[in-house]
């Protein structure tokens, strides 16, 4: 806007030329137009023409009559007519010339004006252009200044960034085979002077923990090709260990060759420690929950065991009572004592179960395992609950299911937990059939699949999302650890645990376990063959 305003307010560059008016032409014009052009001129013209046409005849006639006075008069008149005609012609010719000249002059003037105007327009245009280019230049200057400032800023910012961020910023020259730049944080983090890197470019690797060093050496030599993304420990001179997350990105020159690798090395010690702690807590939690599952199992066993013991004690004391009262009928005593023996045997078989459960797996170790047998054994413990909740059990176990490789006790706990969970879910629902289905099958040739399906009320969407979160429970007294622990158990055995809700009723829990592959078995084929 400012530019157009200034353009318009500017005076024309060249002042307009004034037309010249010669005095003579003005007089002649005036003479012609005022004196000769009007009617007397026409009259004179006719008279002269007549005189011209009749002159000879009149002269002849004058000669004939021999009147010298008239002849002279005629001669004078003729002379006047001739001179008048001449004068008229002259004037006329001159007036035409003046008119033509005037026309031409006008034309010239017009053309001059036009060209002047054109010139003026052109000049204005050029002025505008000049202004424009001037402004553009100014803008360009401003922009350049800005760019320069920005560049300065960005350099400054880069410098600030590189020198103040927690991360060590480094640039490795591939052809130079040395560090071209490393931010000063390096010295703080590594506790080694950056100066050393000038003498020995790989000085930083010396600080890497011996366990991580070979890997980092390899990563360092590979980084110009594929970049790097490594986590490793460094030992600082004071002996403290820091975790470093080091990433490098290859940079290509105009020919497409990697000429530099730029990277960031970050101190992730805090995060690592937090992760470690979390993992430890999770392990601890899983252990505790596994323990609580085992305690529950033991409680069941204790109940089972106390039944025959109570019977034995009661039978024996009844016998003693009868004997003391001398009312003992030997036949009755025989029957009672036989019952005592039976109950003793019953207790023994329960103990055997317990021993199977505990002694077979003194430590959590993987062994070959028949899932069908395991399920039968687990169901034995759940009998009481099944009866209490009036749940019908349906077993759909695959014949000749190959053995899996897993920890016996832990998988028993998972199956027991899932079965019990299903029973509890159905116990709460008041309507519909109560059917617990346990199914074993092969998911693929290397994986066994176990499904525990109930006909309980199922799950809300919200509950389904949070199902496996620790401490989430839909049960009033539930700790909410069972499923998350079960999942961690299954995953620790190389399997997966998940749930699929049914559209109509209930929910299915599935878990997979890897099959045991006997390398000496004829049907053995490597897993990825």
């Amino acid at each position, binding site marked *: 806007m400012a530019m157009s305003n200034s353009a318009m307010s500017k005076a024309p560059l060249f002042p307009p030329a004034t037309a010249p008016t010669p005095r003579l032409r003005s007089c002649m014009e005036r003479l012609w137009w005022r004196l000769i052009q009007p009617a007397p001129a026409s009259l004179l013209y006719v008279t002269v023409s007549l005189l011209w046409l009749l002159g000879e005849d009149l002269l002849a006639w004058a000669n004939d009559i021999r009147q010298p006075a008239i002849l002279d008069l005629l001669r004078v008149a003729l002379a006047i007519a001739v001179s008048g005609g001449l004068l008229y012609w002259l004037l006329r010719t001159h007036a035409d010339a003046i008119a033509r000249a005037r026309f031409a002059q006008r034309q010239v003037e017009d053309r001059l004006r036009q060209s002047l105007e054109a010139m003026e327009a052109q000049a204005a245009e050029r002025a505008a252009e000049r202004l424009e280019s001037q402004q553009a230049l100014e803008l360009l200057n401003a922009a350049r200044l800005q760019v320069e400032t920005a560049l300065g800023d960005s350099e400054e910012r880069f410098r600030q960034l590189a020198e103040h961020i927690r991360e060590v910023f480094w640039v490795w020259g591939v052809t130079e085979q040395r560090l071209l730049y490393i931010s000063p944080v390096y010295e703080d983090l590594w506790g080694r002077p950056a100066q050393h890197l000038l003498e020995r470019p790989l000085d930083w690797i010396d600080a890497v923990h011996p366990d991580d060093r070979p890997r980092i050496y390899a990563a360092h030599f590979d980084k110009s090709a594929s970049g790097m993304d490594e986590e490793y420990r460094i030992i600082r001179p004071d002996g403290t260990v820091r975790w470093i997350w080091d990433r490098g990105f290859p940079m290509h020159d105009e020919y497409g060759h990697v000429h530099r690798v730029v990277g960031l090395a970050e101190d992730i010690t805090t995060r690592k420690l937090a992760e470690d702690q979390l993992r430890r807590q999770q392990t601890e939690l899983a252990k505790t929950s596994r323990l609580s599952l085992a305690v529950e199992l033991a409680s069941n066993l204790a*109940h089972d065991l106390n*039944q025959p013991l109570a*019977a034995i*004690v*009661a*039978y024996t004391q009844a016998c003693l009572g009868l004997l003391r009262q001398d009312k003992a009928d030997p036949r009755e005593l025989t029957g009672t004592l036989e019952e005592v023996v*039976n109950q003793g045997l019953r207790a023994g078989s329960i103990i055997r179960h317990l021993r199977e459960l505990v002694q077979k797996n003194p430590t959590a170790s993987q062994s070959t395992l028949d899932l069908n047998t395991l399920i039968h054994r687990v169901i034995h413990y759940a009998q009481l609950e099944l009866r209490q909740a009036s749940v019908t059990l349906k077993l759909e176990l695959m014949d000749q299911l190959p053995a899996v490789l897993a920890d016996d006790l832990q998988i028993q706990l998972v199956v027991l937990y899932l079965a019990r969970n299903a029973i509890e879910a159905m116990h709460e629902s008041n309507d519909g059939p109560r059917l617990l289905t346990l199914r074993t099958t092969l998911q693929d040739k290397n994986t066994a699949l176990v499904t525990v399906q109930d006909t309980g009320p199922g799950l809300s969407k919200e509950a389904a999302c949070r199902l496996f979160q620790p401490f989430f429970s839909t049960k009033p007294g539930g700790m909410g650890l069972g499923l998350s622990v079960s999942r961690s158990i299954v995953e620790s055995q190389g399997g997966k645990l998940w749930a699929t809700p049914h559209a109509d009723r209930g929910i299915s829990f599935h878990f997979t376990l890897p099959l045991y592959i006997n390398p000496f078995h004829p049907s053995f084929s490597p897993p990825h063959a």
Partner: protein
Amino acid sequence: MNDAPTVFLIDDDQAVRDAVGLLLRTDGLAVETFTSAASFLESGAAERAGCLVLDVRMPGMSGLDLQQQLRARGHRTPVIFMTGHGDVPMAIRAMKGGAFDFIEKPFQGKTLLERIHAALKLDTCERHRRTQRADAAARMAQLSPREREVLERIALGRYNKTIAAELGISVSTVEIHRKRVMEKLQAESLSDLIRTLALANDAE
């Protein structure tokens, strides 16, 4: 109906039922056994004198559930719980629910018998007191409203004169009411009268 106090033994485990039943019978107790809480409720035995010996964990209705049901129905039969493996919250729940005792399997026969005898004694006393209360309440029901007013004031230890003034009747009328009350409640003394009133109030 058998009026002799009976031990009602409820356990889903056949061996326990058999053995404990034998033990109790050896001691001369009348024993009836049930395989589940539901079958006990159906038999109508809850009405009868005696005590319950009950396993906590049973299929269907648990021992604790049965105890609740009995309380809800107004039965006061003492309950002794047996448990194969008891925990503290379970015992607390049982005792809060009014259990007579809570014993763990396996148990000394003597212990169980002692507890059973105590429970039976309690039940007998309770039943006797309940009968007395019902009796007193029945006798109280015979009183006219005016007689009841007079009785209430006698119980508060007022003199006949005071009662007459309060009720706006003559002293001789108070004396007549008093005599009627003594007759209707079959009381021979003032203390008899007060005891009957207290029993009747308890029954309410």
